[in-house]
C-alpha cells in the first residue's frame, strides 16, 4: 500500500521575505567560525583537520584489517602458507601469483614464489577470507600506495610484494595457532 504524506511548506514571514536580516544572521555564523578558527591558527591550537603525511593518527579497529598484505609465520619461522592457491583463485584482480615447492617437513608443501602486485590489488580482502591456514592477512598497517615505479619491489619503493617483504610477523604478536596444517604440527608435538 502506498501512503502519501503531504508536507506543508511554511510561508515565509515578512522579516524572512526581506532577506537582509536573514543574510546578516548567516554572516554571524560564518564570522563566528572564521574568527574562532583564526584565533586557533595563530595560537597554534588544533583545527580539526589532520595534516596527513606529516601527522598520522592510529588507525581504528577494523580499518586496520584493510591495509597491505603479509603472511604469518609459525614458531619455527616457516610461513604458514601451504601454497593451496585458494587466494590466487578467488582474487578478482588476479594480483597474486604463487608457485609451490616441496619441503622436508610434515606439511610437505610451501610457496616457492609468492608475489602480490599491489598496483592491481583492489583491497577487497577476499584472499584473507579464503585462506584455510589463516596465513595471509591484511593487517600490516601500511596504507600508502603511491609509487613512481610499479615494477620495483616494495622495499625499493615500488608496488611489488615478493616473499621477502611478505613473510613476517608483527612486533609483539601472539603467534596464531589456527589453520589445518598448524594443528597437525601441534598434534604431532603433543604425541612426541
Amino acid at each position, binding site marked *: 500500500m502506498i501512503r502519501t504524506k503531504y508536507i506543508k511548506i511554511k510561508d515565509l514571514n515578512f522579516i524572512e521575505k526581506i532577506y537582509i536580516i536573514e*543574510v546578516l544572521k548567516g554572516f554571524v555564523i560564518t564570522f563566528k*567560525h572564521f574568527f574562532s578558527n583564526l584565533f586557533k591558527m595563530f595560537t597554534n591550537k588544533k583545527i*580539526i583537520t589532520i595534516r596527513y603525511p606529516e601527522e598520522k593518527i592510529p588507525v581504528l579497529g577494523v580499518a586496520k584489517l584493510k591495509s597491505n598484505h603479509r603472511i604469518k609465520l609459525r614458531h619455527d619461522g616457516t610461513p604458514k602458507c601451504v601454497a593451496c592457491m585458494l587466494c590466487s583463485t578467488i582474487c578478482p584482480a588476479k594480483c597474486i601469483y604463487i608457485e609451490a615447492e616441496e619441503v622436508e617437513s610434515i606439511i610437505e608443501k610451501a610457496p616457492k614464489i609468492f608475489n602480490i602486485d599491489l598496483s592491481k590489488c583492489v583491497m577487497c580482502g577476499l584472499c584473507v577470507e579464503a585462506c584455510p591456514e589463516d596465513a595471509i592477512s591484511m593487517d600490516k598497517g601500511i596504507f600508502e600506495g603511491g609509487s613512481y615505479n610499479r615494477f620495483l619491489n616494495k622495499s625499493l619503493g615500488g608496488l611489488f610484494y615478493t616473499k621477502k617483504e611478505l613473510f613476517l610477523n608483527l612486533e609483539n604478536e601472539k603467534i596464531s595457532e589456527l589453520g589445518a596444517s598448524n594443528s597437525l604440527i601441534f598434534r604431532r608435538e603433543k604425541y612426541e
Partner: protein
Amino acid sequence: MNEYIKELILKNLGELKNYFLLNYQVIIEFIIKMFILYFGIFSFAALLTILERKISALIQDRVGPEKANIWKFRLWGLFHPIADGIKIIMKEDFIPKNANKFMFSLAPIITVFSSLIVFAFIPFGNYIQILDHKIKLILIETDIAIFLIIALSSLAIYGVFMGGVFSANSWGILGSMRAIAQLISYEVITLISLLPIILIYTPSTLHDLVEKQSDMFFGIIPNWGIILQPFAFIFFFTAALCENKRIPFDVVEGESEIIGYFTEYSSMRFGAFMFAEYIEIIFFSMLITIFFLGGWNVPFLKDYGFKIFNFVLEIDSKIVYLLELISFIIKVFLVSFIIIFTRWTLPRFRFDQILRLSWEYILPLSIANIIFTAILIRII
C-alpha cells in the same frame, strides 16, 4: 594631399614634443603613479586569490592551502599565488577546433582590459607628499569619471559574450546567455543606486566627493554615504556582487551546473578571466569605499591632525596624508573581505530569482530612493 598630411603630422609631433618638454614632470609623475597603482592592484588581486581560499577554509573548519614553500619557508601559504601562477602558465593553451580563433583569443583580453582601465579614473588616496612635491593620488581626474567608470566596466559584457559564443561549446553559449541577461539588468542598478549619493553631495569629481564626506554630524557621526544612504549601499552592494558574477549570483558560472562562458578556456586565457574577477572585486570595493565609506577619511582626522571636540592633536601633514592612504587601503581590504565572505555565506539564487530581484524589487526601490532623496533635499 600626402604632403599635407605629412606636414600635419610633423607639426603635431612638434607640438607633442613641446608639450612633453614643458610638462615632462607631470608625465613622469603620471608614469610612476601608473606603475605603482597597477603593481599594487596586481599584487592585491594575487593576495585575494589566496585570501579567498584561506577564508573559505577557515569558515568551513579546514586548514586551507599552506604547503607551497620556498626552502621550507611556508608563511601560512602566502606563496600559493606564485605557485598557482606558475602552474597556470605551464598548462597547455588549447583552442577548440570549431572556435573562432580571433574572437576566442580576444575575449580574455577585453575582459582584463575593461577591468583594468577603470582604475585610471578612481582616486586611490588623497595626496602624498615627497619632499616638496605634493602628488595627487589619481591618474586622470575628470568630472565625468563616475559615468565613465560605469560605462567602461560594462565593457566586460563583451568579453563574457565573445568567450562563450565563439568557443563553439553549448555550455559556453548557455553561460554567456545567462551572463548577458544578468549583467544588463544589474548594469542599470549600479548607476541608479549611485545617483542619490550624487544628489546629496553634488561632487564635481570623485576626489571632491570624498572631500565632501569629511564633515561630521554633531561632531560624532561621520558624514559618509552609508549613513545617509543605507539603502543605496545595499542596492549597490548587491549589484556589485552580481556584476562580479560571484556567489550568490553565479548562475553564469555555477561550478556544479555549467562551467559557463570559460568552459573551453585553459592556461593563461582562463587565468585572465579569473584574474579579471579578482580585479573587479578590488574595483567594486574601491567604488564602495569612495561612495559609501568616506574614501580616505578617518573620523576626527583633519589636515592638521586629530580633533576630537576641543582636544587637538597636531600632526605633520605628511603623516596625515600617509594615514589617509593607509585608511583607504584598509577600507578597500575590508570591503573585499566582506565580498569574499558573502560568497561563502549565501547559497546560489535561481536564475529567475536573480532577474526578478533586479527588475521587480531593486530597480523600483532604487528609483523610489532617488525620488525620496530629491524631495528630502528640496525640503531641507
